[in-house]
């Protein structure tokens, strides 16, 4: 149900872009209170808590182990968010790109919080 509600965000152009890079973009939908991750041509809606958790999962991938391990199984990392439609199959390069995207998105989200705080102070 969450995904179909969120898909209305795209249809109605209600997305505000927070960050864009070569491999993807991150958006906020203030009408459904969710985020959208566009990555490798796919769109993924994320509730706030899912985004925070997903970012931690991506940040915690042990890249050094992946690089040092010569076995084929370590070529890819599989990351699943329970409410995402798909799981992510990522190589090292993609992990680094996604990390950068999510970190930048997080920074923009925090910046928005700071601005809200300052504006709130101005109003009082």
């Amino acid at each position, binding site marked *: 149900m969450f995904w179909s509600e969120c898909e209305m965000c795209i249809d109605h152009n209600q997305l505000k872009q927070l960050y864009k890079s070569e491999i993807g973009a991150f958006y*906020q939908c203030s009408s459904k209170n969710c985020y959208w991750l566009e990555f490798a041509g796919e769109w993924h809606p994320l509730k706030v808590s899912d985004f925070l958790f997903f970012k931690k999962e991506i940040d915690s991938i042990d890249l050094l182990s992946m690089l040092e391990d010569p076995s084929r199984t370590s070529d890819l990392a599989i990351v699943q968010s329970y409410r995402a439609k798909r799981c992510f199959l990522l190589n090292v390069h993609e992990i680094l790109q996604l990390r950068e995207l999510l970190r930048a998105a997080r920074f923009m989200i925090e910046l928005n*919080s700071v601005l809200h705080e300052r504006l709130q102070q101005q109003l009082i």
Partner: protein
Amino acid sequence: MKDLLRLKTSLKEEIENILNEQIKVEAHSSAIYLAMSSWCDDQGLDFSAGFFEKQAEEERNHMMKIFKYVNDRGGRAISPEIQNIPKDFESFRSVFELALEQEMHVTQQFNNIAEQCMKHKDFVTFQFLQWFLEEQIEEEYVARRILDMFDVIGEEGTGRWEIDKHVQKVSYSEE
């Protein structure tokens, strides 16, 4: 643009992470005390076994206090993995020495969290920590006092039995 992040949680990411680390520390403490209890029971030191069982329960309660706080503030508390719990201890005295070291480590952890709270101006969490900081005075005192008993009474003869008998009577009073 709506501030979705603050609608969800009042905790900064760094504070949430450090609180989740502390949840793990408290859970680890609880498991170590349980191991000590079992060892003491095995050695026939009934009162010490009871003392450590009670300590294990207390540490778990501390963990749950922090756990609930993180969730109450909109964060996500992580149920911790516990590893590296000793199954054997060198001696009766070494068990209490380890208990004191453990408590001092916990105190230091809370000091670090308090420092981070000040740094990030999270005075609500800083206020929440006060109870734990006061609690650590008692925990360290009790652990030290019991170790003093080993010096005062000694373990020779019926010494171990005497120490074991008095362990649960040690308590902290502010006056």
